């Protein structure tokens, strides 16, 4: 990589790392895991900088999603990485938020990825499909199933999470 490319890559990381670490944290629920996920994705992006420099952020996100889904699947089980703040809650709205966060952490990997891409990244379905390597129809189906699963995981949310 020549000096100009290195500088442009470094400038990209400086400009976007703040946003990217947030996405990594939403995926992993753990600061160290998020940092490692981002580091790995940036290394892959740097290796292909010449071909992705026009849209590097999309490439980084794609690498993070694929890496994280792959790890979840390989471990063969679900585990809640990271937890919402503990404490005794007497506020119904706070209880609701805690329930939703717990349910999000408990979603299976692909359903969680679709929810994050759709509601946190606010990406169009076509782009979600491209990142996940599936059809737009599958993205819609997975989003629908994810909402259903969230209702199962947190029954107190059922009235708030209506099926679309």
């Amino acid at each position, binding site marked *: 990589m020549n000096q100009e490319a290195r500088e442009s890559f470094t400038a990209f990381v400086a400009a976007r790392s703040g946003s990217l670490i947030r996405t990594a*944290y939403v995926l992993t629920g753990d600061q160290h895991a998020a940092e490692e996920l981002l580091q790995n994705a940036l290394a892959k992006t*740097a290796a292909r900088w010449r071909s992705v420099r026009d849209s590097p952020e999309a490439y980084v996100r794609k690498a993070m999603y694929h890496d994280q889904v792959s790890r979840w699947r390989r471990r063969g089980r679900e585990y809640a990485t990271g937890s919402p703040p503990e404490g005794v809650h007497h506020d119904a709205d706070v209880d609701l938020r805690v329930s939703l966060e717990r349910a999000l952490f408990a979603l299976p990997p692909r359903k969680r990825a679709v929810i994050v891409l759709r509601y946190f990244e606010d990406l169009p379905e076509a782009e979600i499909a491209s990142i996940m390597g599936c059809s737009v129809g599958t993205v819609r189906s997975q989003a629908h199933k994810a909402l259903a699963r969230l209702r199962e995981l947190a029954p107190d949310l059922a009235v708030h999470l209506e099926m679309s």
Partner: protein
Amino acid sequence: MNPEDNGRLLTEALTRIADRADPVHDPAGLAERALRRAGGRRRVRTAAALTAVAAATAPLLLLGGGETVRPAPPAATAAPDTAAADERRLVNACMHHGPPTGGMGGPHLLPKKGRPSDFRVLVSTEAGAETVAAVGSPGGFVLCAVQNELSTEPPYFLPWPGDISRGLSSFPGKLRVDSTAFLTRVGENGRGTSYDGLHHLVTGRFKPDVARIEVVWNRDRRADAVLRDGHFLARIGSRYAKTDDIDVMVRPQDRIRSITAFDAAGKVLQTWKAPGKGLRDFDSNTCRRPGAPALCSG
């Protein structure tokens, strides 16, 4: 509540989660590490140099259909300094240039388990353009699949199973299984199917009079292990089973049935047989659970 309210509820929840992330305090350092790992300065040579430092016995693969695959013979031996430097790069890539980590859900970085300089290549083998390796320290080891200094796995630390109080070679018998695991193949980003590609491997230790180790998987798949300095490693290709429901995670059903050690004359020294249907996943971290397998002792 309408779908827009769904979206708002979820967006707010995900934003609250994201707000708990610590910001990146050194973006320039983050970029530099990424560039270094991307091979901006040097690359691990996976051909001649690593083949030269691998064991003398090249792996022989017998596939289920009777097809025999032999890897290319080792290239000319590389200069010792080059070979040592390449091994060091492999260790650094395996270790992600830092200390090992605990398993997911447990403590993350484990600096007390050592730095990359405390680990060395125990045994490695080539799988296409990738190098599959076990790198170890006196306390334990790390498994990895590496290509161009990129490792697919976090450096999960696996303590040596069994009793090592009298040294790593003090186990009973002629061979000892230390781990079986699935590792993700490197593949290419953006190609969804590549993330289904896996290695299924077994690592362990053997005594000096062992000249060959054959591993047998289910469906009668066999491979000779790579041997080096008392450590062995054998692998086959694997992948998740495809289903119509993309959300169904069907884990590979690859299972090791037996491992046989032979002396130089071809005589069987020991055959280890896996319990039940065979061994799919094992490492010493499972020894802390109730009903620990027999591999945890000895």
